[in-house]
């Protein structure tokens, strides 16, 4: 044993171990997937028949808004960057922890606080009800006087704190803690995707924060950012929102692309083809994502020259996406594919991504977009992308890394069955939405007239949603059962190429007894003879940023109770802001500063 984790509940509350924090992220975001899923099922039940009365219009609006906010901010981002990123990044890099272990703990506890903050609104029947993009002027206190929108603004600023901290941690860890020899061209492709996501978060969240601060100043203090009568600009909200919102779409989809580049080589028994092109394509998707935001605003009356620019920019995303699709397909085709559950989910991902991508290209045609905007055709498109394409690799990844995390195998037969149920459920739920959308059914409306011919399609969609729910439950039942009854897997059941498969399953608290050195992007397939011996205390080596040469050995901070205490104080601060107790909020802010001081009082070198 090099070092051990503190046992018991206290150990989990004070942990700085990236694997434990990853698991905390996993279970919390899984809970929010359940909440967002129940909201979706409630909406689908309401829409199963025309003029249904399952949900009142007010409740429907709240369910619809919370479904979007939950799935984006409380499920996909924390699941991909928080759970997968935290658990796998140091293991794939050959490091012993993240660059800032305590900041890592803080970002988890802030995420939990933000999630509880947002969900408190549901129990107070004042959940956000303005849709996830919450356009002005409907979001102003004139039209939405309750606390609903205040929960939305403050809640999203709150999650932004957590996500930014996490992204900074991922970037610095990727830059500095790669195993000796892992220059950038030898870094696993999945980590390029994670790096691209983190950079996107760092640059995309500030516009959202600015926007939300503007809105909250307008709501609470009567500022005039969006009020046209006083010189404000209603479109400013949309510009700032989509300047965040479109990079956000790629933040959701890129981890999925990364997971695909991990699963495909393992089950195709060969390296990814076009490795540098795929790496660049992942970074390019994130980069182009910042130049296309106005394609969400084709119907707002922007000048035609602006529309054409953004339409052309949007078409460019096709290039890096298609590079990746062909690289995945040819890798499978040139290898010896073994279609076990993880690879099946990647196959489903590629199919759904192509369908959603093709309907996406249609929106770059400005007149088509203007005709279909705010209809179910849009809902169909983005659910193929952010459910089909973004979530399927997450599900495949759950099966793929389950043996690494638990040391046990999942049940293969049930896993394959769960794939088909989920895949069929997805198509049946979302495909008919194209048709009712083209027939003119608008989004965000709690019911519809019986005479429009939408009833059959809507009923099919609702049945599909329940099939989909059964598929997801089969996956989690399989994993829960296998956690206790699965066959022991050993350290490397699939013969994966990257470093996480070179350590035991589950990995020890220090990940690697000696730090491996690397001479290939697939170090488990092409191992080196050398390794770096590090001392027995809480230490990890760091490397130079570009070439990954061994640089120095640094002390890592030990476990600490301060992150959870600070997150609790920040949560109270947000509650005080919500209830307009500005002075109490200021007291909590000062308390937070004192806690930051206490946190840093003992420096890592002074700790045991």
């Amino acid at each position, binding site marked *: 044993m090099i070092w051990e984790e503190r046992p018991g509940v206290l150990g989990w509350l004070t942990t700085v171990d990236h694997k434990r924090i990853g698991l905390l992220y996993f279970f919390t975001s899984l809970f929010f997937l359940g909440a967002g899923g129940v909201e979706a099922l409630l909406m689908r039940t309401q829409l199963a028949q025309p003029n249904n009365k399952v949900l009142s219009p007010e409740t429907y609006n709240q369910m619809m808004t919370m479904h979007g906010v939950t799935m984006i901010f409380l499920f996909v981002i924390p699941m991909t960057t928080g759970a997968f990123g935290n658990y796998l990044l140091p293991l794939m890099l050959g490091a012993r922890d993240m660059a800032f272990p305590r900041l890592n703990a803080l970002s988890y506890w802030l995420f939990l606080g933000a999630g509880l903050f947002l969900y408190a609104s549901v129990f107070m029947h004042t959940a956000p009800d303005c849709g996830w993009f919450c356009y002005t002027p409907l979001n102003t206190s004139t039209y939405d006087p309750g606390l609903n929108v205040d929960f939305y603004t403050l809640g999203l600023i709150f999650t932004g704190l957590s996500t930014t901290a996490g*992204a900074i941690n991922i970037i610095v860890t990727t830059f500095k803690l790669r195993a000796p020899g892992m220059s950038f061209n030898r870094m696993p492709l999945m980590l390029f995707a994670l790096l691209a996501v983190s950079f996107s978060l760092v640059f995309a969240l500030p*516009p959202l924060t600015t926007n939300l*601060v*503007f809105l909250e100043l307008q709501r609470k203090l*009567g*500022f005039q950012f969006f009020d046209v009568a006083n010189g404000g600009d209603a479109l400013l909200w949309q510009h700032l929102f989509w300047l965040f919102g479109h990079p956000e779409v790629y933040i959701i989809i890129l981890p999925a692309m990364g997971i695909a580049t991990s699963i495909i080589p393992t089950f195709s028994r060969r390296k990814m083809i076009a490795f540098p092109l795929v790496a660049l394509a992942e970074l390019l998707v994130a980069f182009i994502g910042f130049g296309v935001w106005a394609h969400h605003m084709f119907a707002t009356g922007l000048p035609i020259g602006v529309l054409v620019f953004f339409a052309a920019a949007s078409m460019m995303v096709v290039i890096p996406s298609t590079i990746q699709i062909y690289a995945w397909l040819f890798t499978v085709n040139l290898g010896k594919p073994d279609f076990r559950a993880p690879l099946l989910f990647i196959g489903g991902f590629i199919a759904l991504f192509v369908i959603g991508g093709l309907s996406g290209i249609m929106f770059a045609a400005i007149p088509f977009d203007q005709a279909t905007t705010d209809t179910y055709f849009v809902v169909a498109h983005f659910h193929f992308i952010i459910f089909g394409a973004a979530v399927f690799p997450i599900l495949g990844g759950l099966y793929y890394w389950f043996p690494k995390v638990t040391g046990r195998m999942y049940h293969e037969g049930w896993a394959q069955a769960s794939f088909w149920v989920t895949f069929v459920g997805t198509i049946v739920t979302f495909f008919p939405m194209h048709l009712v959308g083209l027939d003119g059914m608008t989004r965000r409306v709690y019911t519809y007239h019986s005479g429009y011919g939408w009833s059959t399609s809507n009923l099919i969609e609702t049945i599909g949603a329940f099939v989909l729910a059964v598929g997801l439950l089969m996956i989690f039942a399989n994993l829960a059962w296998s956690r206790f009854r699965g066959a022991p897997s050993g350290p490397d059941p699939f013969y994966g190429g990257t470093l996480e498969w070179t350590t035991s399953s589950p990995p020890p608290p220090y990940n690697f007894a000696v730090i491996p050195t690397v001479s290939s992007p697939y170090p488990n397939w092409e191992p080196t003879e050398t390794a770096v011996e590090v001392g027995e205390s809480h230490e990890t080596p760091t490397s130079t940023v570009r070439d990954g040469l061994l640089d120095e050995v640094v002390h890592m901070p030990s476990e600490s109770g301060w992150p959870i205490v600070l997150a609790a104080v920040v949560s109270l601060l947000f509650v005080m802001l919500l209830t307009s107790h500005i002075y109490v909020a200021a007291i909590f802010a000062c308390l937070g500063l004192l806690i930051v001081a206490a946190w840093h009082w003992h420096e890592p070198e002074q700790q045991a």
Partner: protein
Amino acid sequence: MSAVPYTARSAKPNGWWGMVVFVATEVTLFATLVGSYYDLRFKTPRWPPPGVPDPKLALPLILMAALVATSIPVQLAVGFSRRAQARGAQLALLTAMAVQVAYLAVQIHLFADDLSHFRPQGSAYGSIYFTLLGVVHLHVVVGILLEAWFVVRLFGGMTRYRRVGIEATAFYWHTVNVLAVAVTLVVLSPSL
């Protein structure tokens, strides 16, 4: 297995990189604020609106120059800390802090004076004007707190951790100074 030879540090430390990425988000935040300023400005026939005085030039520009000058003692503190001279670093940081606190005091006075002439609730101009300045002042406060922390900690002598921290704080200050120049020029632009 043979061990790879260990060499002295040649890359920037983790803490410095953490600050660089953090500052990147801060710069983006300011960019969106400045972008919003011009978005609102280009949709308003008269900027500032009738009844609101044009911003005064002399004092804000002098203050801006004074704030930028504090980058020199902050960078000197980095040099002292690299040579493990805790006293010198403390003195340099205190010099910078003295100017920055004076800067902040005058700025708060100006802020209150502006509030007595026009209000953020009155027009989009007032809203973005006070928001931009408020955000800059908040960043100056954070910088002063960071320096104060290291002044106190350096009574216990220089450590590797504190050296990295001072280097990161210096990077933060240089960026805040650049941002303060940008924001000052933007809010003064109606009078320039």
